[in-house]
């Protein structure tokens, strides 16, 4: 019975592919990465303010003009500052932001693996 359910789910999963990506996807992708200046906790995609609605139209227009995702980000960065981007780019302000977690991961790894080697020494 359980197995049957599981198979039904998989059957359903494989058929999910029929969902096609439409042209709104790229716009949504971009607006999700923009922070709304009016309701400052939300992305432009999630927000419903006048500003966010206009920005959605603008992004679509820029895409139609043939600008790439990054060009649109750059354009808006000049207008509103880096704050508007949810995805901080790697520069001198954000080295620590991006690299510190990785550094912590590596240090953690060293501590964990040191325990194994300690053991080996004990055995010898």
């Amino acid at each position, binding site marked *: 019975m359980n197995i049957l359910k599981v198979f039904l789910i998989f059957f359903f999963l494989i058929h999910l*592919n029929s969902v096609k990506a439409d042209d709104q996807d790229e716009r949504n992708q971009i607006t*999700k990465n923009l922070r709304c200046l009016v309701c400052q906790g939300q992305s432009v995609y999630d927000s419903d303010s006048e500003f966010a609605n206009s920005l959605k139209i603008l992004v679509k227009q820029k895409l139609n003009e043939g600008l790439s995702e990054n060009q649109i980000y750059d354009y808006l960065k000049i207008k509103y500052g880096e704050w508007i981007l949810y*995805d901080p780019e790697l520069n001198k302000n954000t080295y620590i932001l991006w690299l*510190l977690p990785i550094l912590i991961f590596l240090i953690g790894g060293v501590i964990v693996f040191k325990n*194994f080697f300690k*053991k080996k020494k*004990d055995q010898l």
Partner: protein
Amino acid sequence: MLYSTIGYYSLILGLGVSLLIIFFSVKNFQNSKTISVNILSFTFLQFFLVVVSFLSLIISFVLSDFSNETVFNNSHTTKPFFYKIAGTWGNHEGSLLLWLLVLTLFIFIFILKTKNQPIKYKLLTLIFQQIIIIGFFLFLIETSNPFNYLFPIPVEGLGLNPILQDPALAIHPPILYLGYVGSSIIFSSALAATSLNLVSKKWASHIKKWILASWVFLTLGILLGSIWAYYELGWGGFWFWDPVENVSLMPWLALTTLLHCILVLERKSILSSWVIILSIATFTLSMCGTFLVRSGILNSVHTFANDPERGLFILIFLFILIFISLFIFFFFNKNEEKISHSFFWLSKETSILINNWFMMYFLSVVLIGTVYPIFLDVITSEKISVGPPFYNKLLVPFLIPFLLMMAIGPRLKWIKSQLEDKIYLIILLIISILLAYLILKNFSQNILINTVLISSAFYLFFISLRDFFVDKLKNISQNIAHFGFSIFILSILFNNLFSSEIITNLKVGETFENSETKIVFESVNQKQETNYKSIIANFNIQNSNGEIDKFSPELRIYNQPIIVTSEADIKTTLMEDRFIVINLVQNQNFFNVRYQVKPFMLWIWLSVILISIGGLLSFLKKRS
């Protein structure tokens, strides 16, 4: 008026009782054969006083007593009865009072229920807990008094923000606080155990119950908040990586790590220092969260009344606690030599250690992502935003080894082990990869990472599924939790990859049609309720199978305060949620309509409940 007086003086008395409890505890500490009856009764008295205070605030809300400033700011006579009560803790002052209530309740339970532990340990835990309780009393009385008078008495209140008038959000804070406050017991207990050098297997199995209880509450609390955000806040998102959400996730991550780590300590008396650090970190992160949220140092979708003075108080209080714990940790903790105790590379300890390693990484990503903008702003005055893409980039790739480890780890034995049933492990891995590939084969973007990710989630899914049959009830709670986690990750992944969305502008009578879906905007009608007026739009939506469903999303115009909210209409089925929401567009006669099909939405919630059930079972299990 009367109730405010009762409530206020109960608080003052409660603070006084704190001092008495500390006094008697210290006295009792020198002569510690039995716990003095005084202490137990005073602890109960304190709890009772806070209950009285809390009840008087509830009564003030129910009676709409606008001579009370908190009631005036957050209530209104037309508000439904249920939300008058829930509104008690839907605001800053009331929620702190609730926090205090849980604090006093938990320490009372702790004193009553802790058996077979040294008296000195119980007394010392009580003292540390009273320090926290005093901090909260002072915070309430000094900066956030829920019983301030207003004169002249206003005729009508300002009302509760309508997006907070919601059943999920009414029970979200109490549940979450049970989790947060549970972690305060762990904190005090860890400090007491360190000071008395009692960190041992026995202590571990005693505090494990508290860890499990807090963990279950915290998990459910976050779940409720997330469900609320899903149908109330946005456009079908349930986690925005918003600072306020991160702040609840951080103690959860620390607590989950602690939960795994305490298992090792319980069996093998190793990693004791690490357990202490985690116990301290969990509560510190909860407090740090309170600071970040209440001080208004961060901005977030979740608007709270902000006040820098309150922020300063919590900040100082937080750092007093941090420095006390640092002092105790460095001064008393003498357990370090035990750490060098042996590890064999293939053992349950190692896998838990690796779990800890990854969890700490996840925690550091969330922590750094949340506070980094503050640091950058203070140091360089540059302002940046850290949002979902940051967390996705740093977290998602690391999930792959984490999931694999989660699948294999529980199969290992303590101390030293061989991997049994190697063939099974390999066969299941191959099946998982094939399945993931089949599902994603037509998918264009990021196929590689998604396939690997889904494979590893499937792998965990299959292995824990198989363990239900092979291992029977040997370690059912762990297995349920891990199984739940695999479903959780799978549903999120499928939800992300296969959601589809239509955004369009429609007037009444118009129809939107594409190859899959036909949306007919039938009509609009209006409804008048006591505290809001609603505009209901009626849609008929036909999906690709030709089935037609009626949807009626609403726009609500609340009268007190005047706020327009849009209420989504969501049809939930086992396999997918269909979600429609409308909005007005300035100076246009059409509505902005968003229709989303989100597969496996329900499974995200169910899997989290499953994970909590795992914790609950472990909590109920008697140790043999």
